[in-house]
């Protein structure tokens, strides 16, 4: 076993052990204490991060730009050439991203230990946090599209649960549900893309699919039409995960969760996953000009709408969320324009800055209040020179559109959700009529189940 394999195994194993330990104690009847949880989190992240940094140092010393770490076949059916390869890839893209993930997760873990001290949901938060960390590590280091999907799903699940962290608030839960729904749609696109790749190439290994040469120099062995089809699906997946237009509405909703999760997940890491995916499959983008143009267009559109929305938000977390989205849009546009290393550097810098801003947000408000109290009034509003170039009516229209977040959620609801629910509700009513007719009477006891039943359990038992 080489040093790379040992270190690579540690990088992946430490969050896995963390999930196993926290998961086992969460489900058991003997929950772990806050202090013990914190120690496990601290140790898990520290060990994983140290190993990841050691891999980077080793790569720099040896000059290796791409180091695969194999864990063998998870599932294989030799007769059908079906295999699920557990392979991790340490290269110029994955190593910086996994170190970034560890640094930010570690920072937030330390912050959350105090921020959520004695919160009733501390253990739940820790479990979701561990799942998220594992998901990020798997996604970052995935050497096959199947492993990437595995991590991708873990990130989605933990994100939805964290947004709904404050269980007693219906709004938080509704937002968690909305985000989960968007994620499921993007995950479906991802899965179809993975299957299509499997069918076309017979396997899902990135280094084989993307041609010889380490990232970003690989050349995809796909035709332009194949690249357009698969790339479009991956773009939809990235749009869902990174809240790009038209899915931007979920990002401010995600701020309903506790500040540490907002900071690390939706402000810094999770929101960049779509861009990371596009970088990982960048050789596919290069095979199709139309696809690259579509990526750039989505990025520019997202950046423009998010920048406008950020300027009119009335709460700091939403404002930061849209500011974050603006940069993500720019990063995606950069990828569409054919840049590779610059977007990666942009992601790392932006994620670090935004984490800091989001963690600072609660105390910043306090500082602003102190400042306003000191000067005896509100801080003066700053206007830009842009206002002189546009008529007043246009400004009002733009303000309203930005305030309503360009009606993206409303459009999705009108075009997709309402017709879908309407048709199915009609089917449900038709089924009721049919069973009532067959039963020669009322067939559904469930109709009598009242939404607000006030009978307490003791009386029912």
């Amino acid at each position, binding site marked *: 076993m080489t040093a790379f394999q040992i270190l690579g195994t540690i990088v992946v194993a430490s969050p896995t052990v963390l999930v196993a330990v926290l998961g086992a104690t*969460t*489900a058991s*009847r003997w929950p772990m204490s806050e202090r013990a949880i914190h120690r496990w989190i601290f140790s898990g992240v520290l060990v994983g991060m140290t190993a990841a940094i050691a891999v980077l140092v080793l790569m720099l010393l040896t000059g290796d730009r791409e180091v695969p770490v194999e864990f063998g076949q*998870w*599932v*294989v*059916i030799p*007769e059908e050439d*079906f295999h*699920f390869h557990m392979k991790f890839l340490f290269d110029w893209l994955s190593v910086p991203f996994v170190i970034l993930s560890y640094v930010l997760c570690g920072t937030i873990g330390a912050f959350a230990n105090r921020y959520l001290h004695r919160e*009733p949901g501390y253990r739940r938060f820790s479990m979701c946090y561990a799942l998220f960390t594992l998901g990020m590590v798997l996604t970052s280091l995935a050497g096959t599209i199947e492993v990437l999907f595995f991590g991708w*799903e*873990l990130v989605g*699940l933990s994100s*939805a649960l964290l947004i*709904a962290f404050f*269980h*007693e*608030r219906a709004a938080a*839960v509704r937002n*968690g*549900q909305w985000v*989960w*729904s968007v994620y*499921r*749609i993007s*995950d*479906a696109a991802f*899965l*179809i893309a993975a*299957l*299509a790749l*499997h*069918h076309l190439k017979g396997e899902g290994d990135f280094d084989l699919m993307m041609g010889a040469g380490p990232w970003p120099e690989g050349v995809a062995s796909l035709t332009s039409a194949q690249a357009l089809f698969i790339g479009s699906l991956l773009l939809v997946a990235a749009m869902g995960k990174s809240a790009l237009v038209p899915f931007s509405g979920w990002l401010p909703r995600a701020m309903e969760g506790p500040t540490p999760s907002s900071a690390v997940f939706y402000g810094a890491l999770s929101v960049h996953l779509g861009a990371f995916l596009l970088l990982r499959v960048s050789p596919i983008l290069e095979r199709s000009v139309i696809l690259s143009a579509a990526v750039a267009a989505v990025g520019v559109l997202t950046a423009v709408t998010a920048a406008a929305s950020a300027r009119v938000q009335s709460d700091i977390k939403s404002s930061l969320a849209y500011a974050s989205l603006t940069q993500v849009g720019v990063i995606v546009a950069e990828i569409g324009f054919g840049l590779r290393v610059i977007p990666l550097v942009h992601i790392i810098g932006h994620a670090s800055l935004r984490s800091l801003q989001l963690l600072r947000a609660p105390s910043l408000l306090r500082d602003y209040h102190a400042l306003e109290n000191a000067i005896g009034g509100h801080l003066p509003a700053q206007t830009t020179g842009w206002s002189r170039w546009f008529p007043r009516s246009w400004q009002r229209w733009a303000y309203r559109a930005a305030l309503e977040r360009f009606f993206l959620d409303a459009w999705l609801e009108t075009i997709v959700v309402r017709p*879908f*629910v309407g048709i*199915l509700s009609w*089917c*449900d009513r038709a*089924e009721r009529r*049919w*069973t009532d007719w*067959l*039963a020669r*009477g009322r*067939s*559904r*006891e*469930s109709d*009598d*189940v*009242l*939404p*607000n*039943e006030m009978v*307490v*359990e*003791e009386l*029912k*038992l």
Partner: protein
Amino acid sequence: MLELHLPWLELVIAIPLVGAGVVALARDAETARRRAILVGGVTLACTVGQWLDFSLLHTFEAHDRGDVLSRVFGPDAVVIDELSAPLLPLTAFLTLVVVAATLRTKASRFPFAWTLVSEGITLALLSCRAPWGVVILLVAQMIPPFFELQRRGRSPRVFLAHMGPCVALLIAGQAMVDVGGATGPWSLLAIGMLTAAVLIRSGCAPVHCWMTDLFENATFGTALLFVTPMAGAYAAVRLVFPIAPDQALRAIALLSLFTAVYAAGMALVQREARRFFCYLFLSNSSLVLVGLEIATPVGLAGGLCVWLSVGLSLAGFGLTLRALESRTGRLSLAEYHGLYDHMPSLAIFFLLTGLASIGFPGTIGFMGAELLVEGAVGVYPLIGMLVVAAAALNGIAVMHAYFRLFTGTVHTTAISLEARFPEWLAVMALSACVISGGLVPQLGVTSRYHAAVELINRRDRASESPSNREITSRRGTIQPCHP
């Protein structure tokens, strides 16, 4: 054909049937519950014993030692093969956990004796390969729920309106196959009749309303145990799959695919938990049928994997809903209940099993779903993607139900709603199966793949089609698996 070391199959059929008589004689509900748990436990032990014994024989099929029943009813009356070997312990396990997780407060209303009768019939069905035996046992399986509906004073008309034609089609179709053969002039009509019967029994849309009606009017436990072994899918494999032409199988697959998407969508708009569960189950069981009828090794293996994973995960999911219902009564999904703080372990289990049912990575359903989608896309590249759409909708529905039941408000109660020890034990046992099956999937996938190949080869041998030679030459001799 090789013989098992003990008459396991006859034991697993006889024990619950005899046990049902013993339970029926119990003086009170609590005694009946304890006896039912004991009988269920012994039955489970025997099914596990037969599975281990069968796997040690390294063969595709085996008979009981002595084999009294086969001498009377024919060689295929009681036989175990790679398809049915894991289904027997699964059925026995599900019955045991349902019986064990029945709270004392509900024991007086739960039909323990009838449940054991159903278990015996289902185990006999899963041990039977003879077409007429399958037909008769399918019909017999419908009797206990019918009596329960009557005993509870509910109208059995919807149930009968579907099961009546199903029985008629089964008997007529099988009689025509017997008379005319699978290739005779009336064969297409006979196959069509059997297919229609299977579709009704499986609850394919638009003939699925019996299933929602059963969940509405029978006890949750009975409805759960009637649908989770997926007798319709078993009938499809034994009665239709060996004789139906490829095009007919693919037509069933398409219809099942439509049902999977339709039921997934319907699960999203339900306002009551039982109906929601019913549609969720319907969607997933239809995906099993999709896999079975794709008739390619990968698709069929995927269908068989999903069969096991859906059986385990949705039984656990239903069990959690049943535990909730036994504490709060029927649950509306139109509002939030906020039960998480009172029953965290049940909440986690609810989510875990729900995610397993949609093929979430790391759970038992993941690899089966992957194989199934791979198989479906291989046959119908575009339409197969609907499988992914159904899984996505089911995922949204599962999370929707989780949020509605466990979050969104503060639930106030004066008594503890936490899982009782037997429930907790059942939950942990199922969780262990769901997670271990997800983390170490190779064993299960190999076993199901071998079963799939054997089914396809047997079908090809029966029809002597050119594809038989192709599959055999491509794969050579398939080695038996070792579960």
